[in-house]
């Protein structure tokens, strides 16, 4: 198990630490604040590489829509800074702390980027991958390198930002990132549809998303289907009205949430709070074509009637809680996804369970082999978070 911690204070110290680890044959457990350490395959690393010593905003230019920051900067600090200028991280990074058995409000922005996390606005604004403009960091050869930049449009060289986002720290250790930010909406309102079953709810959400009313959140909780509309006041008013008319034939009860209530509601959806999770429950995240969501859940419930689920992303994201089991029911969950495509990630389970079953969706052989070659092209000696992605 982990014995000691290295805490570099500058990008150059970070590079030296990696170079030393390479020469020493030491594997590194790379951490921001460790808020997501209970996720992924359990690792047995020789050292913790703690990035919290590399912290702070380097540059924030609101009219450029870009913020540049050190890798250890807490997400809360970034969000507070942006809020002062009425801006936001449009991909709505969730706070998975409580779900993973930690306190709320922790985590670094780079940690969220490394998991390619995204909240309800994934639908319209994209995930972390869509907002990482560039970075600098250290590869597994102990070399400092960079990719991307600070500008909105950039096709110079391969888009390594996309690759690093979602790599869970297994390719390179970042010391600095530039992230795209967007204006925060003046108003946020929510139309609630009451009493729809899963299938009707997903049909309603897909219809709303296919309308010109610019929906920025579409979630279905048991008994309650929520559609979010954001923007300037006159527009929000008009779109809400049009949306009500569009969905009138559903014969569902309708309610509205104002801006403050909406913000609280969508924050809960973002953080997976609506999922009924017992203390030992395992939690899965399933990404699928939106219209397939209800059938997938139905297949799982046929075999595991006590499963709890809710939908985000218009049905394309299923949060699923299952009672404890030695194999997290992974064959049932992944078997339910079917031929229309999608993948399931085991978000929460005991260390023993995560060690025993694939946390990430297994890939076909050719793709899995390609992923290994990609990993080795950055980190040939497997220094960074070895085995975390399985």
């Amino acid at each position: 198990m982990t014995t000691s911690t290295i805490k570099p204070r500058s990008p150059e110290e970070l590079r030296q630490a990696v170079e030393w680890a390479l020469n020493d044959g030491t594997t590194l457990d790379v951490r921001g604040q460790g808020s997501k350490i209970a996720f992924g395959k359990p690792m047995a690393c020789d050292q913790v590489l703690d990035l919290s010593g590399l912290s702070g905003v380097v540059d924030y230019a609101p009219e450029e829509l870009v913020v540049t920051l050190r890798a250890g900067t807490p997400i809360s600090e970034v969000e507070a800074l942006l809020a002062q200028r009425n801006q936001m991280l449009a991909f709505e990074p969730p706070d998975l702390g409580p779900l993973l058995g930690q306190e709320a409000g922790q985590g670094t922005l780079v940690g969220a980027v490394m998991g390619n996390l995204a909240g309800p606005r994934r639908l319209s604004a994209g995930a972390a991958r869509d907002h990482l403009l560039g970075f600098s960091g250290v590869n597994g050869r102990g070399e400092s390198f960079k990719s991307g930049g600070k500008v909105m449009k950039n096709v110079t060289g391969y888009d390594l930002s996309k690759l690093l986002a979602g790599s869970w720290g297994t390719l390179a250790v970042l010391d600095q990132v530039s992230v795209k930010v967007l204006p925060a909406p003046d108003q946020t309102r929510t139309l609630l549809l009451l009493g729809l079953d899963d299938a009707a709810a997903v049909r309603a959400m897909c219809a709303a998303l296919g309308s010109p009313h610019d929906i920025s959140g579409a979630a279905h909780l048991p008994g309650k289907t929520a559609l979010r509309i954001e923007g300037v006041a006159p527009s929000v008013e008009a779109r809400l009205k049009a949306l009500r008319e569009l969905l009138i034939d559903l014969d569902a009860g309708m309610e509205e949430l104002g801006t403050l209530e909406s913000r609280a509601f969508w924050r809960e959806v973002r953080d997976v709070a609506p999922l009924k999770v017992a203390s030992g429950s395992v939690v899965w995240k399933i990404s699928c074509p939106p219209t397939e969501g209800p059938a997938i859940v139905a297949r799982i419930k046929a075999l595991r009637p006590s499963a709890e689920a809710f939908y985000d992303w218009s049905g394309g994201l299923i949060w699923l809680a299952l009672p404890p089991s030695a194999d997290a029911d992974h064959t049932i969950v992944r078997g339910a996804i079917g031929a229309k495509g999608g993948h399931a990630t085991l978000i929460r389970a005991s260390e023993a369970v995560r060690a025993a079953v694939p946390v990430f969706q297994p890939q076909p052989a050719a793709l899995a082999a390609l992923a290994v070659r990609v990993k080795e092209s950055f980190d040939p000696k497997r220094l960074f978070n070895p085995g975390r992605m399985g």
Partner: protein
Amino acid sequence: MQMPPLDPAILARRSEIVAALRAIVPGEGVIDDLEGMRPYECDALSAYRQMPLVVVLPETVAQVSTILSYCQDNKVKVVPRGAGTSLSGGSMPVGDAILLGLGKFNRVLEIDYANRCARVQPGVTNLGISKAVEHEGFYYAPDPSSQIACSIGGNVAENSGGVHCLKYGLTTNNLLGIELVLMTGEVVRLGGKHLDSEGYDLLGVMTGSEGLLGVVTEVTVRLLRKPTTARAVLLGFPTEAGAADCVAAVIASGIIPGGMEMMDKEAVKCAEAYVGAGYPLDAEGLLIVELDGPPVEVDYLVERVAEIARGRGATTVRVSNDEQERVLFWAGRKAAFPAVGQITPDYMCLDGSVPRGRLVEVLAEMREMSKKHRLRVVNVFHAGDGNLHPLILFDANDADELHRAEEFGADILRLCVRVGGVLTGEHGVGIEKRDLMGVQFTEIDLDQQMRLKCAFDPDHLLNPGKVFPQLRRCAELGRVVVHHNKMPFPDIPRF
């Protein structure tokens, strides 16, 4: 333009290679006569031309797979090609390489309105996708000016943008999945109708990889519902700085317009003479700002933008009152390149990106360079996202002018990098900016990118001579030097 030396052994085996391809793709799908290959000798960077070894136009994924595994086994190079509209020489042939054209992959395979996506073959044109779904009120958002001609496969390879990318994103933000054939002939699918990757985001890596990593044989794109209305505002400013300030002020006020384009005085003059869009000829900087959404929102934002512009000294503020007028406002911008083409034998279109706040300074410095190189420059650009398209006017028949234009172009791109920008915002590196990569990247940066290339194509067979100024062998790049136990622990806090 220096290309890698041709391999005499491959040239000597040409007839054998042609025969092997004929066995894979029957009939007219293999073109080996000079006249037949002529249409493929260049892309839209037409100053550079080269005949390929042979052209092959497969029709099925199985054929693409067999061709690539044959090429891998026989170490034959391959240049993938969509519609050949690349402005950076991305699809320019290589003399000892097969040109693999995807033109026959031209079918829309599936439209799924409920999941808001379309599955198409890579040879379908960008506009073809929007046309296939417009009767239902949908469209595909990224809209390069070449959209009538360019293929979606080419868009994926270049990560193409357009005037609406400010609000709706580039190709990479609008893709859900692709099918990809690797050099080994293996066929893999990345993504699909769902969001995000189960592992590394290889879809993101493929997007903008300029045909160097694999051949795309199917594309799933996200469809959007058309906004109910769109109106354009034409804003003329007595100074370029005023126009640039206005751009920053609009964004700082929290408005992300559907599009925000700028033209300098020269560009306005050319465009006006060419299409008569009613542009103010006295403006030093002209902005076209498009707002889209429901009518109340558009009306509200149009007013706010007009107010901001007046506050920054705009001398012309005109709002389109109907669709016809909106289209007219855009007509001049959309025809800007051909309009400039009317006043010069040739022009070179650059594509640097800079932080918006440095626009004015960059424009001024470009003018100075224009004097130094004794060539005129006209500026049209995506001001909202800081993506410049300086057009350098020259005469290609005059060797000295061509040379000066190349020097001038390189100076502009170096300037972009110096102010914190990049060499290319949407047209790609190709052969055009290949030798400038060292201005933006260190050797280590480039080696890391090449190692990623090696993970896909260890023999550098795909689109050789593009993007990287110097290719290094994968075996050499892959070597890791480890000094076991020789290094003391550095002076870093440890506990």
